[in-house]
C-alpha cells in the first residue's frame, strides 16, 4: 500500500507542478460557455429578459440550473472530504441540503412564481407597505449574497493552491481576479439567460463526472456497498468509528442541530434560489423545476456518499489530510487515483466551473435586488425609464464583481468556511419567516415583516460575532484571543425562532391594519396564477 501512496504523492507533485492540463480543460469550459452566453444574449433588452431570462426556460432546464446553482464547491469538495475523513458525519451533513428542498417544493416555489416578478422583495412587499418591506428584503438579500459570494471567492483562491500548484499570495490573487472578471463578463453579457446556461452546463459536467467516478469506485469494490465500507474502515486510523456518528459533530451535538435547522429552513429563503423560479413561464413549470432539482441533488449526494467513502478506502484519510488543500483534496485525489492526470484535470476544471456558476448566480441576484428594489422602487419610487433599471443593474454587476475580487483576495488565509453556514442562517432567520407569513398568514403586517427581517439578520450576525468562530480557539478569526460569549458556531437555533417570533409579535402589536383587498388579491393570485407574469415573446 505504501507504494501506491508514494505513487499518488509523486503524481500529485508532478501534476501540480505542471498545471497546463488543468488550465487547458478549464479554458475549454470557459470557451464553450462563453460561446453559449454570447449566443444567448441576443434579446437582453428588457428587465424581464435580463433578470428572468424572458421566463422562457423549461422546468427540466431550470431544474438543472438550480442544481448547478446550489451544488457549490463546498458541497462537492467539502462533503466528499468530510465523508472520506469523518465518514458518517459528512453524510449526515449532506442530507440537510437535500431535505430542505421539500420546503421549497411544498410551501414556496409555486406561490412565489405566481405573485412575484423578479426578486424576493416583490412577493414580500406585495400586500404590505412597499418601501420599508422592500428595503428590508433587499438588505437581507444583499447580506446573504455577500456572505455566500465571499465564501466562494475565498474558496477559489484555496482551490488554486490545491489544483494548480500555485501556492504564493500573488498567484492566488491573480486566479481570484480571473474568476471575478470572467463572472462579470458572463453576467454583463448573458444576464440571467447566460448565467442559467453556465449553470446547466456545469450541472451536467459535475453530475456526469460524479457518476463516472462512482461507477468506477463501485466496480473496484465489486458493486458492493459493504465491501466499500470495509475498505474505508480498514484504511481509516479511526477504524469502525467512520460508520457511526460523532467524529465531526460529536463534541457538541447542539452545534450541528443549530446548523441543521439553518440548512433545512434556509434553502427556501436563499434569494438566488428564489430568483430561479422566475425564469420559467408558469407555476407548474416552477414545480417541475423543483422536482428535477430534487432528483438531481438527491442523486448527487448519493454519489458523494460513495465518492467520500471511496476516497477514504482508496486514497486514505491520512494522505488526504496531508495533501495541499486538506479535506477539499479528497475528490481530486480520488480522480487522480482512478483516471490519472486527465480525470484529475477534468474534476479540477469542474470545480472551477462550479465556483464560476455559483458566483454568477449570486451576482445577478444581488444586482437585480439593488437595481429593482433599492434603486427603482425605493429611491426613484418607480419613476425610471424602461431601460434605466437594467442599466443600473449592469453597473451594479461591475461594482459587485470588483468587491468580490477585493474581498476574495482580502480574506485569503482566513478561515471563512463559516460564511456559507452564516448565509443559510440569515436566509432561514430573516427571509423564510417573512416569506411563509406573507404567503400563509392573513394577519401578518408591515411591522411584523420589518421586525422579523432586521431582527433575524441582526441576531444571526451578532451571534456569529460573539461565537468561537471569532474568539478564543486556534481556528478563530482572532486566534486564541478572548472568550466566546455564545458557545455555538451556528446561530440558527436562536436566530430562526427569533425571526418567527418577531414576525408574530410585530404583527399582533400593529395598530394599523393592512389592506384587506391586497391580501385577498395576493391569495387568489398565488394559488390560481391569475395575472402572473407571462413568458416574453420574442
Amino acid at each position, binding site marked *: 500500500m505504501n507504494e501506491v501512496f508514494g505513487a499518488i504523492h509523486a503524481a500529485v507533485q508532478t501534476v501540480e507542478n505542471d498545471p497546463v492540463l488543468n488550465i487547458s480543460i478549464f479554458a475549454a469550459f470557459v470557451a464553450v460557455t462563453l460561446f453559449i452566453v454570447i449566443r444567448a444574449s441576443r434579446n437582453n433588452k428588457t428587465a424581464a429578459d435580463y433578470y428572468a431570462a424572458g421566463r422562457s426556460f423549461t422546468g427540466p432546464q431550470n431544474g438543472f440550473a438550480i442544481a448547478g446553482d446550489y451544488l457549490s464547491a463546498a458541497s462537492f469538495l467539502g462533503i466528499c472530504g468530510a465523508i472520506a475523513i469523518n465518514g*458518517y458525519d459528512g*453524510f*449526515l451533513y449532506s*442530507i*440537510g441540503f*437535500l*431535505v430542505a*428542498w*421539500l*420546503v421549497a*417544493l*411544498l*410551501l414556496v416555489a409555486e406561490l412565489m412564481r405566481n405573485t412575484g*416578478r423578479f426578486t424576493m422583495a416583490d412577493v414580500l412587499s406585495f400586500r404590505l407597505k412597499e418601501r420599508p418591506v422592500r428595503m428590508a428584503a433587499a438588505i437581507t438579500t444583499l447580506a446573504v449574497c455577500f456572505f455566500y459570494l465571499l465564501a466562494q471567492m475565498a474558496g477559489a483562491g484555496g482551490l488554486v493552491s490545491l489544483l494548480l500548484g500555485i501556492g504564493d499570495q500573488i498567484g492566488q490573487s491573480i486566479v481570484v481576479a480571473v474568476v471575478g472578471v470572467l463572472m462579470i463578463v458572463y453576467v454583463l453579457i448573458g444576464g440571467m439567460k447566460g448565467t442559467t446556461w453556465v449553470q446547466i452546463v456545469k450541472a451536467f459536467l459535475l453530475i456526469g463526472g460524479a457518476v463516472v467516478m462512482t461507477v468506477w469506485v463501485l466496480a473496484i469494490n465489486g458493486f458492493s*456497498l*459493504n465491501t466499500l*465500507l*470495509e475498505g474505508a*474502515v480498514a484504511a481509516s486510523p479511526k477504524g*469502525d*468509528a467512520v*460508520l*457511526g*456518528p*460523532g467524529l465531526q*459533530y*460529536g463534541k457538541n*451535538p*447542539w452545534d*450541528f*442541530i443549530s446548523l*441543521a435547522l439553518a440548512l*433545512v429552513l434556509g434553502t427556501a429563503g436563499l434569494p438566488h434560489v428564489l430568483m430561479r423560479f422566475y425564469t420559467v413561464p408558469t407555476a*407548474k413549470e416552477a*414545480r417541475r423545476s423543483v*422536482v428535477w432539482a*430534487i*432528483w438531481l441533488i*438527491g442523486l448527487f*449526494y*448519493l454519489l458523494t456518499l460513495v465518492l467520500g467513502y471511496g476516497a477514504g478506502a482508496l486514497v486514505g484519510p491520512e494522505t488526504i489530510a496531508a495533501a495541499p488543500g486538506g479535506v477539499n483534496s479528497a475528490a481530486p485525489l480520488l480522480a487522480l487515483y482512478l483516471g490519472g492526470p486527465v480525470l484529475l484535470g477534468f474534476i479540477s476544471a469542474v470545480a472551477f466551473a462550479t465556483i464560476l456558476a455559483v458566483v454568477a448566480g449570486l451576482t445577478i441576484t444581488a444586482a437585480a435586488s439593488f437595481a429593482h428594489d433599492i434603486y427603482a422602487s425605493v429611491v426613484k419610487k418607480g419613476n425610471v425609464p424602461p431601460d434605466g433599471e437594467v442599466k443600473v443593474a449592469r453597473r451594479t454587476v461591475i461594482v459587485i464583481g470588483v468587491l468580490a475580487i477585493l474581498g476574495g483576495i482580502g480574506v485569503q488565509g482566513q478561515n471563512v468556511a463559516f460564511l456559507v453556514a452564516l448565509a443559510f442562517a440569515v436566509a432561514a432567520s430573516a427571509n423564510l419567516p417573512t416569506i411563509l407569513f406573507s404567503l*400563509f398568514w392573513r394577519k401578518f403586517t408591515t411591522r411584523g415583516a420589518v421586525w422579523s427581517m432586521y431582527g433575524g439578520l441582526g441576531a444571526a450576525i451578532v451571534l456569529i460575532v460573539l461565537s468561537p468562530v471569532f474568539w478564543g480557539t486556534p481556528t478563530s478569526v482572532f486566534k486564541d484571543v478572548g472568550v466566546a460569549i455564545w458557545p455555538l458556531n451556528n446561530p440558527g437555533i436562536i436566530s430562526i425562532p427569533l425571526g418567527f417570533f418577531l414576525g408574530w409579535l410585530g404583527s399582533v402589536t400593529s395598530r394599523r391594519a393592512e389592506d*384587506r*383587498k391586497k391580501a*385577498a*388579491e395576493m*391569495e*387568489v393570485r398565488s*394559488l*390560481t*396564477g*391569475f*395575472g402572473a*407574469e407571462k413568458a416574453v415573446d420574442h
Partner: protein
Amino acid sequence: MTESHDRAAESAGIDYIEVEESPPFQRLKRAQRAFVFPLAIAFLLWYFAYVLLSSFAADFMATRVSGDITVGLLLGLGQFVSTFAITMAYVAYANRRLDPQSRAIREDLEQREAGAR
C-alpha cells in the same frame, strides 16, 4: 405587465375579496393547505428525529445491521427515500387535484377580464 394588468382587472370589476370568499376558491385553498401543511410538518419531524438520534444516540446509530451497514446509514438513506416519495406524492396530488381547480378559477377570472376590455 402588472400595471396594465391591474388596470384591466379593476375595470373588469374583479373583486378579489369576493373571489377569495367564493366556495371554489375556498375549496382550492383548503385542498392545498390540507395537503402541504401536514406533509411539511411530517418531514421536518422525521428529519429532526434522525438528526437527534445521530446526535444523542450515537451507539444505536452505529449498530451494525449487516456487515458494515449501520442503522444510521440506513436511516440516512431513508431520508433520501422519503424525500423522493413526498416529492412524487405532491406532484401527483397537485396534478390531479389542485391544477384543475386553480385552472377553472383562473380561466373564469381571465374571461371576466377579457369581457371588460
